């Protein structure tokens, strides 16, 4: 399943039943608000009062937290260390021997970590709750060129496909006596044999998929019909429009706030 639907996780939640564009608008709003609103803590407020409740309603709270954490934590730690220690000038917060943590550096780290958190978190929430094929269909219905929607969907799907392939290839090499546990050197050596078959087979994959969709009329210029339709509640288009307005509003608000301060 993972191979077919990217990061998507099936759950019995009403969020999963929402129209893909509604969810796209929600995560787009988080993204825009998180990146544009000034202030050190604004992104954290968005996460706590927006993203986490949504993840809870999607029955994916733990999943989202652990996946986001795995991506964001290493970044956060390094940003705190690097910015805290290397900030030139600034007010020392804690001093340990010759090393001192600067207040300004920590503030910068808090702000940029928050941005990464909201970007990664909202993208993952969207990917976890939305089937890529449904998204593709929804985008095509709105007149998005099919080559573009294909591009979007295939890039969502590529990571899990890549992972699955990499695991299979690694299994094949281990079965021929390749030791992957042990020293870092041994591990690095173990990864090398993976690279060639992984890239080669991915290229073959891409070509075959291109052929497969082309013979089914992918580039046919005329209007196309769709076998499936995506249900959407009457209030959803309204919410989508509202979110678009909210995005514009947030943008204006953040510009004004910056001009004033």
């Amino acid at each position: 399943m993972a191979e077919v639907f990217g990061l998507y996780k099936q759950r019995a939640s009403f969020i999963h039943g929402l129209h893909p564009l509604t969810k796209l608008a929600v995560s787009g709003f988080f993204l825009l608000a998180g990146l544009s609103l000034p202030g050190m803590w604004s992104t954290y407020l968005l996460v706590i009062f927006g993203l986490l409740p949504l993840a809870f309603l999607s029955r994916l709270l733990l999943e989202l937290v652990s996946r986001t954490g795995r991506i964001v934590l290493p970044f956060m730690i390094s940003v705190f260390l690097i910015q805290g220690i290397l900030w030139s000038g600034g007010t020392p917060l804690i001093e340990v021997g010759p090393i001192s943590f600067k207040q300004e550096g920590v503030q910068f780290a808090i702000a940029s970590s928050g941005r990464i958190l909201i970007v990664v978190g909202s993208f993952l929430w969207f990917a976890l709750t939305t089937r890529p094929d449904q998204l593709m269909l929804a985008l095509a219905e709105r007149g998005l060129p099919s080559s573009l929607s294909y591009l979007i969907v295939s890039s969502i799907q590529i990571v899990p496909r890549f992972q699955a392939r990499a695991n299979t290839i690694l299994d094949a090499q281990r079965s021929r006596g390749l030791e992957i546990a042990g020293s870092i050197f041994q591990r690095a050596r173990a990864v090398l044999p993976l690279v060639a078959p992984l890239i080669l087979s991915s290229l073959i994959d891409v070509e075959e998929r291109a052929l497969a969709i082309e013979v089914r009329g992918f580039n046919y210029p005329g209007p196309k019909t769709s076998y499936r339709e995506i249900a959407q509640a009457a209030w959803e288009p309204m919410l989508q429009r509202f979110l678009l307005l909210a995005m514009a509003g947030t943008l204006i608000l953040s510009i004004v706030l910056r001009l004033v301060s």
Partner: protein
Amino acid sequence: MIVEKAPAKLLPIEIEVDSISFTYPSGIQALEDITIHVSSGERVALIGQNGAGKTTLVKHLNGLLKPVSGSVKVGSWDTHDHSVAQMATRVGYVFQNPDDQLFQRTVWDEMMFGPRNLRWSAERAASSVQASLEMVGLEHIKEMHPYDLTFSSRKLLALASVLAMDTQVVIIDEPTTGQDYRGVQQIGSILSELNKQGKTIIGVTHDIDFCAEQFERSILMAGGRVVLDGSTRQVLSQISVIDQAYVEAPQLMRLAEKLGWDFMPLTVEEFIHHLDG
């Protein structure tokens, strides 16, 4: 004084699969309470429809998968206590898709990968590689790039690259996919040759006619369980049972049944012999 030539040193290895169950992380239970004993030198086919658990089961035999409960022993080694790389000295595993396995620039380097991992001396590795290439009939293309070979040759190369490691047990997953009649015959004779050397062969196959001709014992799986386990003739002649597992009996047996015979032939020769007799 007569110096006896050292016999090929294959220590007999028994495989003990003791009531194992396995569940994938996605929650799908793939194996349920499976117990199998395979003696050294046997030729066993695993048959069953897609999703019956055949590949999952053989992945337990070299430790790629570890049972959730129960144990798998290859000789004295429990797969829980040994890495896949260690198991590779006893169990060779030929993957279904050669493209998951082949990655070197030349056929020769590809073949040397396994023996090098086992830290063999250069001479031992080279002679084993040469012998395995000859066995599958690819010795004339040592310098070619594996990806320039046809699919069926790549499949033979994947097989040879595992044979070069000279393991007592050889697992081969869907060996006949993409092979024409001659290719199937060739793989059959390679398996016979290996068996003559005393090796244990465990094959996963959809090709029921190939199973009938090449394997003395068959294990029919369905829904993660063993349904039938016995001599190939015994197993395959229970046509109604194997029908229920969505496997079609070999064509010769179906023909024999239609003819009202009691005798269930496995090979064309047997069929003709019975017809004449």
